[in-house]
């Protein structure tokens, strides 16, 4: 680091001298400090509170303010003086030896996806071994299942946004349709999850087509607004159609999923897994079962998406994203192509919804607010539109990160004992997203894998792909 920093100014592109370089870093640090002071003066420096007599008082927190401003200044200085020159010099070096043939990817890189899948299958076993039976519950449920639900939702939305380029802000509506389909039919008619899973998918797909029809002629912002409204309409119907959906109170005691009818996870049932296999009673069996179920559902989503991309319909989706007019000039029925994208994307949302209802045992419209759509969309964008691996990583980072931020204790060392990390997790999280989008504007995986090749498979750089006009 030190040598790089020393070399940095010398090889930097515009040949700045070392002294001018540090002076500039000081100046930038000072300006950043000023901005941070202005920004946090009211936000952090002053705090309104109630004293013992219930009077509103202003608490002054100059120490905290000074700490934050100092962190910003030091950070900016380090960035301007050391990190950026090092990055620049490395870039220059890379540019200098660009024509060199890229080394074949390492074993780890080539088999990344396979290793990740194996790891995911082993995850509950590892969790139980490390944390014990009761301790593993949190890891399997809060992390494993929660992340995989979002992976599946994001992979479903990826078909609509990443492949077909149709900006859908109301995706959570299909999730809700799937969840209510299972909850209502499962509870009222006692139908099995395995029957209702396809039904939930079909129902969501039907709603996808219903949404698709009116928005066929819309593009870009207009499409986004209509899909957003659609999501809200579904939610408001769920709230107000009390006779069927029980309104805001929601639906409770939704039946659990059975293991294809062989045994189940209901303690009072004669076929309880503990009785069938002579095991001690525990809630962890159901969680592990749910984990593998959602893992399989997510993998099916990925498999179907990969297969569809290599079919004519998948290529037509991507062509639609690239240029709709050219599609029509080639005889592609853009109406059908858009509707299938909406329907198939919605179908996976419906599957995930049915699973969600079965896992929670209780649903109400509060689970299907716009924020959910926004989070799923953020995962797709952060992961890199169209890339399954990138999206999975983004879901891991976003959902896992949000959960993990509840846990971190070390921040208390920096900000004192009264600091509660869970209050700041959205702030930290937003900051992290901004950083990622600045660093990788096209998401974690920025290149597109071609669906077919004649001689060799070359990744397509995102500078050529388009995001779609809606």
């Amino acid at each position, binding site marked *: 680091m030190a040598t790089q920093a020393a070399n940095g100014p010398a090889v930097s592109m515009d040949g700045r001298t070392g002294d001018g370089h540090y002076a500039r870093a000081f100046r930038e640090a000072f300006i950043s400090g000023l901005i941070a002071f202005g920004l946090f003066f009211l936000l952090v420096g002053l705090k309104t509170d109630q004293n013992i007599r219930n009077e509103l008082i202003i608490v002054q927190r100059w120490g905290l303010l000074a700490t934050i401003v100092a962190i910003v200044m030091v950070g900016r200085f380090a960035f301007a003086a050391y990190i950026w020159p090092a990055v620049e010099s490395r870039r220059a070096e890379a540019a200098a030896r660009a024509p060199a043939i890229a080394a074949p990817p390492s074993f780890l890189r080539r088999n990344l996806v396979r290793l990740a899948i194996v790891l995911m299958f082993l995850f509950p076993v590892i969790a139980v071994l490390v944390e014990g039976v009761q301790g593993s519950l949190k890891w399997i449920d809060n992390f494993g299942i929660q992340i995989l639900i979002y992976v599946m939702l994001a992979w479903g939305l990826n078909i609509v946004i990443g492949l077909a380029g149709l900006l859908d802000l109301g995706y959570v509506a299909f999730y809700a349709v799937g969840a209510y389909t299972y909850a209502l039919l499962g509870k009222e008619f006692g139908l099995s999850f395995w029957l209702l899973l396809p039904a939930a998918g079909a129902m969501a797909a039907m709603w996808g087509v219903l949404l698709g029809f009116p928005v066929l002629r819309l593009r870009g912002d207009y499409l986004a607004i209509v899909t957003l409204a659609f999501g809200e309409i579904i939610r408001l119907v769920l709230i107000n159609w009390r006779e069927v959906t029980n309104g805001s109170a929601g639906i409770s005691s939704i039946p659990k999923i059975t293991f294809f009818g062989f045994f189940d996870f209901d303690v009072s049932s004669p076929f309880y897994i503990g009785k069938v296999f002579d095991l001690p009673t525990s809630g962890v069996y159901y969680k592990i079962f749910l984990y593998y179920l959602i893992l399989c559902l997510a993998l099916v989503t990925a498999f*179907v998406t990969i*297969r*569809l991309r290599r*079919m*004519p*319909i998948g*290529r*037509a989706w*991507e*062509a639609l*994203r*690239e*240029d709709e*007019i*050219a*599609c*029509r*000039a*080639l*005889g*592609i*029925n*853009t109406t059908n192509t858009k509707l*299938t994208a909406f329907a198939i994307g919605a179908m996976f949302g419906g599957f995930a919804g049915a699973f969600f209802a079965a896992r929670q045992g209780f649903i109400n419209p509060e689970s299907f607010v716009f924020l959910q759509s926004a989070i799923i969309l953020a995962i797709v964008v952060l992961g890199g539109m169209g890339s399954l691996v990138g999206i999975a990583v983004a879901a891991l980072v976003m959902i896992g990160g949000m959960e993990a931020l509840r846990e971190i204790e070390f921040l208390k060392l920096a900000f004192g004992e009264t600091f509660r990390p869970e209050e700041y997790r959205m702030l930290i999280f937003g900051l992290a997203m901004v950083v990622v989008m600045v660093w990788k504007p096209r998401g974690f995986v920025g290149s*597109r894998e*071609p*669906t*077919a*090749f*004649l*001689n*060799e*498979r*070359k990744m*397509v*750089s*995102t*500078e*050529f*792909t*388009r995001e779609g006009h809606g």
Partner: protein
Amino acid sequence: MAAATMEPVLRVEHLSMKFGGLVAVGDLSFEARRGEITALIGPNGAGKTTVFNCITGFYKPSSGRITMTRSDGAQHLLEQLPDFQIPAKAKVARTFQNIRLFSGMTVFENLLVAQHNRLMAASGYTVLGLLGLGGYRKASAESRDLARFWLDRTGLIGRADDPAGDLPYGAQRRLEIARAMCTGPELLCLDEPAAGLNPKESAALNDLLNDIRDTSGTSILLIEHDMSVVMQISDHVVVLEYGRKISDGAPSYVKNDPKVIAAYLGVDDEDVTEVLEEVGDAHIIAQPETGPDPDHGPSPSGSMLAGPISDTVEHSDDTEYLLQVAPGASKADAVPTTADDLTRVHGIGAVEAERLAARGITHFGQVATLTVAEIAEIEAEIQAEPGRIVREDWMGQAGALAAMAGGEQH
């Protein structure tokens, strides 16, 4: 079969396209013959691309008929087909003036997308293909071969797996042609294929187009600005100006047509007379040709002065239009010497003229002042669908013709 091959591959009859008050294309009729390269040329804003958009379904023409005859004799009326069925069913492919490639997909993928409909059917609309059943594998291999074939022909085989957006400009133009050819078209419409090409690329393009015409049985209709390109490769040239056809014929004929020269030199309408007199074509002014007879197809050599003038004068306001017609009508009434040739009004053929004559209507002025009740009666008599006379604007046309006839008298 023999009769079908004699039919022109594309027949455009009385095509008009109006955008509000603007007449982009007015009463255009021409033919593109099978196995030939037909060029559509004209100055900027002449309406060439509008004609293309009408043929390929991106615009619905205001009136007129566009007939595509397939080599098996099947006929399609392009103005009635939805745009995506024109390439699929009528086998008309097109390229765009500003290149429209799928730039984030590879060159090879672009050519596969072009074969969408065939692959879609082979994959049992995805269902069978997803399960690995049916003939999808075979169709997929065939599509690769076809793509490879056109990549070879266009010299892009070495860049098959590069993103289309990464190709140089000239190669993108060739790729767009290759992509259009992968749809298996019988008529290929090229919108300024040589625009932005250097002379070498332009020459290569000419070879490619000649090759396509000679070996693949695809007829070509192209728009071009550059007269030299047109003269080299086209078999037949149609010249447009202000949305009207001003010349039509072999390149050598068109090149020497004074109206074309005038159009390209940018002579004012009034000066056309002078130019025509200078080149010894004054008879064109004195004896304007009659409009193409709808019963016998369009005449191959139309002239700018043929056909009704009224189309160029748009009346956006009905009341104003009545006021304008009235003086002309009175003039016509004042000189009821001999019967006017009513067939000069578009929509009035020999049959209609006969029926009108039976009602005692023989002058433009009379047509121009038809009342609503009379119109309804006439429509019933000639078995026209209600509203046709108003739509074809017989009154406006006749008013203008009457005014012109009045002008000639003085």
